[in-house]
């Protein structure tokens, strides 16, 4: 983390802190949801499935919002909003937007499953597997983003 703060301007401390803290919560919530989802496949536990979707809604979504606000704030402070053809920035935005799309799809599928559970119906195991795949894909994409943010390829 040391050099994420190569941006030495003290005005960027708070946005950078929010950016990284939000990203950590997002990654942690995705990992937690993934573990719960895989465990629910094996045990058929509805409680685990519900907890996985709750982790996405109550932790991953707010984490994403804070992470993205931090990113936009830093970009504004550093005058990066109008910069084009900066590879690491392009990777960051692409991964972030792609991750948001997959997170929204996961939340919609999860929301439908939770509604079914609340009605006393059996949740779809296919939906759980799709969300597990999406969550895994987002985690891999964020690994690439961490690489891009730290090595800043040009």
């Amino acid at each position, binding site marked *: 983390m*040391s050099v994420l703060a190569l941006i030495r301007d003290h005005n960027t401390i708070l946005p950078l*802190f929010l950016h*990284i803290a939000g990203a950590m919560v997002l990654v*942690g919530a995705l990992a937690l949801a993934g573990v719960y989802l895989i465990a629910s496949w094996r045990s058929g*536990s509805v409680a685990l499935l519900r907890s996985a979707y709750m982790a996405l809604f109550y932790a991953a979504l707010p984490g994403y919002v804070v992470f993205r606000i931090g990113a936009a704030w830093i970009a504004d402070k550093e005058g990066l909003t109008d910069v084009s053809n900066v590879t690491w920035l392009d990777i960051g935005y692409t991964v972030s937007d792609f991750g948001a799309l997959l997170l929204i799809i996961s939340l919609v599928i999860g929301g439908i499953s939770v509604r079914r559970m609340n009605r006393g119906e059996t949740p779809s195991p296919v939906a759980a597997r799709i969300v597990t795949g999406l969550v895994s894909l987002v985690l891999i994409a964020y690994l690439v983003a961490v690489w891009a943010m730290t090595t800043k390829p040009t």
Partner: protein
Amino acid sequence: MYHALLFFHVLTAFLLGAAVVMFSSFVLGGPINRPSKLVAEILWGVGGVGTLVFGVWLALNRPEYEICDGWIIAALVLWIVANGAGARASRDLQPSADGSAITVDRRAAFAHWMRVLWVVLLLLDMVWKPGA
């Protein structure tokens, strides 16, 4: 070399953060079964060792940083207290037989939230680098 060290330092910091989120879920009443506890412990362990090793390596690798800089000493102290609190919390957070949520006693919850506080301060120290 520098970029590889930085990447692994940040990556392991993310593992540490992910572990904190997972343990927070357990303390807040999320189900705790053996696989989820194991994954959280692995993330905490690998993240803890990784941030320390790659962080110290980075400090030795970069001429602008010294291992005895105030913010690096502060980070090492915070790392130690976070691990102390984490060990205490982990010992008391044992999975239930059926993988459901468990009742967390107040001391374990306190130890966990202290771990969260230390990790947040550690992150703030890394971003701010007071005195650097």
